[in-house]
């Protein structure tokens, strides 16, 4: 019996997954591209309309601003957490890792609703602060960018912590010890020896959080009060409210292209293969 070459055998293994991707993902995606240039009329009208509309441009600016601020927030918090877990936590390490992972098991929808309970005008935070006499009038904690970014940082945090932690795990403590032994202060040793080694982890965490944030929908829709209109909500708006499939599709193509651009630009600075595919 002739044996299939190894390459073919591997292809057979990925074939079912590949078929599902092509039929249920790539094919509809092509459909979306097609709609964007055929509805309501053949041509690039949707795209010219998109660039002319200041509502659309603003929505893109908001989307990138929020994704950027979320990424910064996640990196600062995520780095500290990963640093502590990797270098100091001994006995509580499994617990801390579990706490980082825990949010993954709770739906984003539920987490966003919890933020509403916390941040509302008569929510837990405002009531506590008022009860303690710290404030007179309730603070505006949600239905604005602040609330959206806060909740998004919460949702995205594990995506920053995990790659940074994986990266830190591969760093031998010997380097910092050596630097200290040669007379570097603790801060200098961290800054010049430890931190540069963690940059690949930081970069892959940043990329992951940023790209996921660009397409985020639920949290901004629930906590934004309609004025923090990120592009995915705008797409929903076009399609559900106005049945404007043409413009909605054009917007999603634009989001896809911009996201691809972000990844391309990032590829100049980060080794994508090691950042996203190889975990040590």
């Amino acid at each position, binding site marked *: 019996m002739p044996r299939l070459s190894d390459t073919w055998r591997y292809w057979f293994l990925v074939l079912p997954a590949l078929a599902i991707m092509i039929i249920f993902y790539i094919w509809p995606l092509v459909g979306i591209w097609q709609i964007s240039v055929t509805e*309501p009329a053949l041509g690039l009208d949707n795209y010219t309309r998109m660039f002319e*509309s*200041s*509502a659309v441009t*603003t*929505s893109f600016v*908001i989307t990138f601003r929020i994704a950027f601020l979320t990424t910064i927030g996640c990196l600062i918090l995520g780095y500290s957490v990963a640093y502590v877990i990797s270098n100091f936590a001994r006995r509580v390490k499994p617990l801390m890792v579990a706490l980082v992972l825990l949010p993954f098991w709770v739906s984003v929808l539920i987490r966003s609703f919890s933020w509403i309970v916390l941040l*509302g*005008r*008569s929510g837990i935070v405002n009531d506590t602060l008022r009860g303690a006499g710290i404030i007179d009038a309730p603070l505006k904690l949600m*239905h604005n960018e602040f609330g959206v970014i806060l909740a998004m940082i919460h949702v995205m945090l594990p995506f920053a912590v995990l790659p940074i932690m994986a990266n830190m795990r591969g760093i031998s403590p010997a380097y910092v010890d050596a630097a200290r032994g040669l007379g570097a202060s603790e801060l200098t040793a961290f800054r010049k020896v430890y931190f540069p080694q963690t940059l690949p982890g930081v970069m892959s965490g940043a990329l992951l959080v940023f790209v996921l944030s660009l397409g985020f929908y639920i949290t901004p829709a629930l906590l934004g*009060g*309609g*004025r*923090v*209109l990120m592009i995915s909500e*705008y797409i929903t*708006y076009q399609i559900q*409210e*106005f049945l*404007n499939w043409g413009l909605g599709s054009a917007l999603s193509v634009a989001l896809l292209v911009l996201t691809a651009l972000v990844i391309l630009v990032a590829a100049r600075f980060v080794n994508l293969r090691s950042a996203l595919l190889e975990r040590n």
Partner: protein
Amino acid sequence: MTDFQDTTDHEVKADMAEIAAHKYREGRLTRRGFLSAMAALGILPALGSKAMAQANEIVVVNWGGRASEVLQEVMADTYTKETGIPVTVDGSGPSGGKIRAMVESGAVVWDVCDSGMGTALILTEQGVIQPINYDIVDKSKVLDQAAYSHGVGNYVYSYVMASNPKLLGGNAPQSWEDVWNTKDFPGMRTFRKSVRGMLESATMAQGIPAEEVYDVLNTEDGLKAGIDKFRQLRENIIVWGSGSASQNLFLQEEVAIGNIWSTRAHLLRDQMEDGSFEVSFKGGVIAPGVWVVPNNNPAGSDEAMKFIAHAQDPELQVQWLEMIGSGPANPQAAELVPAELQKYNPSSPENLAQQIFYNDEWYAKNQVRAEEMYVDALIN
């Protein structure tokens, strides 16, 4: 098939179904979920099963959920009791596209459909619905503005000014100008995530008399001025996307003032503490739902018209108001409305006098552009 601009606000109809579901808490969500999924997929009801509705049965179609059951109970069963003719309520959502598809395919299974003015105008133009026979249907039992050639009002709902005086130091805004006055009425406001019913209030807030609103909005400057009002107020705006969202914003005291559906105000009346909820129909925008009858309906034209005439009964319409908050389309129903509900009835003479009628023609012409300007004003 549906390549026309349909201005009818089907969301409010679906919302009524939702309200009813909430109010009675009897579940039925799976059925409704199923029905709306069917509607969303554009699947027509199985044509084979009921294709030939018996001539002695009438099929009335609305938007599903408990609202279908209320319609069944209040209008359909009473008709059967009176005439012996069985009436079935089908909640599969008679959108314009479906009615047209049904008529054009020649397999009409619906007799009477709960539609909207915008849809009725389009369907009339396409020649797929029948003229209302005003020899059988009583024109005096429906608001003048809701008696059209091919559609007749079945109930009404309004966009109204709601407020929470508790959050406003005991004050309640008396006009849309007050709503835009953040100095004397501090706090957040809620408006719909669409210009429908909202631009009118922004126009009145400029001091323009209610009856001139659409004339002004028909001018470029008028439209821009209305949009600009939202730009000025936007730091104080939270938008509502669904009827339940608007209700929640009041319940959680997130907003002090809002422009919301009267059907939701009707619910909030029960849910909010005394003194923390006020509704004013002053400067409200009232919109009628209408019955339409597809061409070649199975039960025959006269039978459909007789059912519509039956549904004009003022007492039944008041029951409808009590159950789902939709206002009677029959002006004679107003005096039968229980005193405590009078204030919440969109079509009571007092409330009617203070409102304007929703102008479908204006929306057919301007909505798409206005929506984009609105979004821009809110975020840019």
